[in-house]
């Protein structure tokens, strides 16, 4: 069986103009630097990492919202990277995205029904007004919006409800792939739980494949089947959810897991760990060798000279570390 989404050695680099007036030295920002993964139908892949690690750029690269530098993206057996803009546009109905900021991603001048119906007008123009309205109402009900809210504007809704509108807009075309870019990080805890449950239910119902991007490892653990940890544009560890959380092998993954506070004072106060020191290095000027070595407690000289290869240490458990 071929995977629904197959990404091979994807690179997204940005040219940054130099600062000197007479010597414009271009720098290269390697936001996504050689990422490969597979996503099966009905599977959720969680992507975690700190801000600036390239996880959002990866999502936008896959959707073709920003040009990719090299590599290939296969959706349902078809290569996307070489399609024309027009051709790629047609494929977008199979891949949709839900953004982080629920209110900013909705047009303030459009009503809820116009927002949700817009994808239908673009991709299914043959539908009659009645059919379209029927579809909009159906999806609104599914995501938990009330029928009487159909003519309201986004500002009349709370953050959680705006995110439901965003999800309805993404799902109205019945896509095969849904990319969620930090969909719950702007929401309150009780609302966050509502949205996570909704996404999990819908995924099962529609057999969606999901890329779920988040910086919160506990949210990712709740929703994902497999998890990929990114650091400075590279994958440092990728495996199934249970394996990752029970047997993390990369020092960065371990540090991320240790850093999450657990809402139980008895556990939280007896945790003995040393939080990772320092900040993410600038992606404009990444360290030589292994990019994590500047913050890694296990780093040696080898790490400075040689970048670790990704290796499969047990079945379906990939790690890039000399000491895994």
């Amino acid at each position: 069986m071929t995977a629904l989404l197959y990404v091979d050695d994807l690179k997204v680099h940005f040219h940054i103009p130099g600062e000197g007036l007479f010597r414009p030295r271009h720098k290269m920002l390697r936001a996504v630097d050689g990422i490969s993964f597979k996503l099966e139908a009905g599977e959720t892949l969680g992507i975690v990492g700190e801000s600036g690690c390239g996880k959002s750029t990866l999502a936008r690269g896959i959707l073709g919202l920003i040009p990719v530098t090299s590599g290939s993206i296969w959706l349902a057996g078809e290569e996307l990277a070489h399609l024309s803009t027009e051709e790629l546009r047609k494929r977008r109905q199979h891949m949709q995205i839900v953004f982080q900021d629920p209110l900013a991603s909705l047009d303030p001048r459009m009503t809820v029904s116009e927002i949700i119906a817009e994808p239908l007008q673009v991709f299914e123009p043959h539908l009659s007004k009645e059919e379209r309205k029927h579809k909009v109402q159906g999806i609104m009900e599914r995501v938990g919006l009330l029928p009487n809210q159909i003519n309201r504007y986004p500002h009349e809704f709370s953050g959680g409800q705006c995110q439901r509108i965003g999800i309805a807009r993404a799902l109205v075309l019945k896509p095969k792939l849904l990319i969620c870019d930090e969909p719950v990080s702007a929401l309150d805890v009780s609302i966050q739980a509502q949205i996570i449950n909704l996404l999990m239910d819908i995924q099962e119902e529609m057999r969606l494949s999901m890329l779920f991007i988040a910086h919160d490892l506990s949210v990712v653990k709740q929703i994902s089947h497999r998890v990929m940890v990114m650091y400075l544009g590279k994958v440092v560890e990728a495996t199934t959810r249970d394996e990752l959380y029970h047997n993390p092998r990369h020092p960065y993954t371990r540090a991320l897991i240790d850093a999450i506070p657990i809402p139980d004072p008895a556990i939280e106060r007896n945790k003995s760990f040393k939080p990772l020191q320092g900040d993410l290095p600038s992606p404009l000027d990444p360290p030589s060798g292994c990019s994590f070595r500047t913050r890694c407690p296990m780093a040696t000289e080898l790490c400075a000279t040689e970048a670790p290869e990704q290796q499969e240490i047990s079945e379906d458990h990939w790690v890039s570390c000399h000491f895994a």
Partner: protein
Amino acid sequence: MPLLEVNNLRTSFHTNDGDVYAVNDLSFSLEKGETLGVVGESGSGKSQLVLSIINLLASNGHMEGSIRFQGQELVGMKPREINRIRGNRIGMIFQDPMTCLNGYLTIARQMTEVLIHHQGLDYASAKKHSIEMLDAVHIPDAKSRIDRYPHEFSGGMRQRVMIAMALLCQPDLLIADEPSTALDVTVQAQIIQLMNELQQEFGMSIIMITHDLGVIAGISDNVMVMYGGRICEQAPVFELFENPSHPYTQGLLQSVPRLDTAGSVKLHSIPGNPPNLLRLPPGCAFVDRCQKVIPACGWQQPPLL
């Protein structure tokens, strides 16, 4: 005598749509050296509570009740007098470390200002003291970094600068309003550890506002859960997590995905949305979302037991 005693505090804002009641009849006290965690969702009034304490309400804000800090009444105090307490006896850390530092001034200028103003130091000794404080919050190479501008620091570093600045006058009370929310988890862990360490060193009381129950579990002695501008539960930290009594606290604890259990069970979620502070119900503010509603909830304010 407690360090801080708040009695029947009410804070409201006059808007074109009507009065917004952000803090409603709230009372609590804080002992010396104690850390009080305040949890609640956005709009629960937790930020307005601390802004009331340091008298930084927006111009349409109005408060009544009593706030006694070291025996002094803060409500109705003249700006000149409150200025002597604010930044001196009470330090404050805000959520967004970028917008709270002045981007046009060097860190040195911003830090020394506090000491020159409150303690009458001259620039040279104020700067020396500031460098010591930056060392205390583990800013590497503080001596040269102090002459840089805020944009040259990362988010976590800026938050350390904010903490150093709040602690310059060795305040008796430190108020931290979501100090780690804008930061990555790894940096959050650094900041929380730093705050625990500094509290042991300086012995100040802390009011820690956050929506992250994990952070609360790690840092507080007592916890106050706020909803609709009122306290819905207040208890010592172990008691609250072991034996939450209010349906809202129970719901909140169950809706957090926990790293140790996540994925094995479905998340519990509290249906509905937080209340509109413009139109608070006459009874319990949680009435629409509660699963244990009885008729009295609709019209009678539940007493704090």
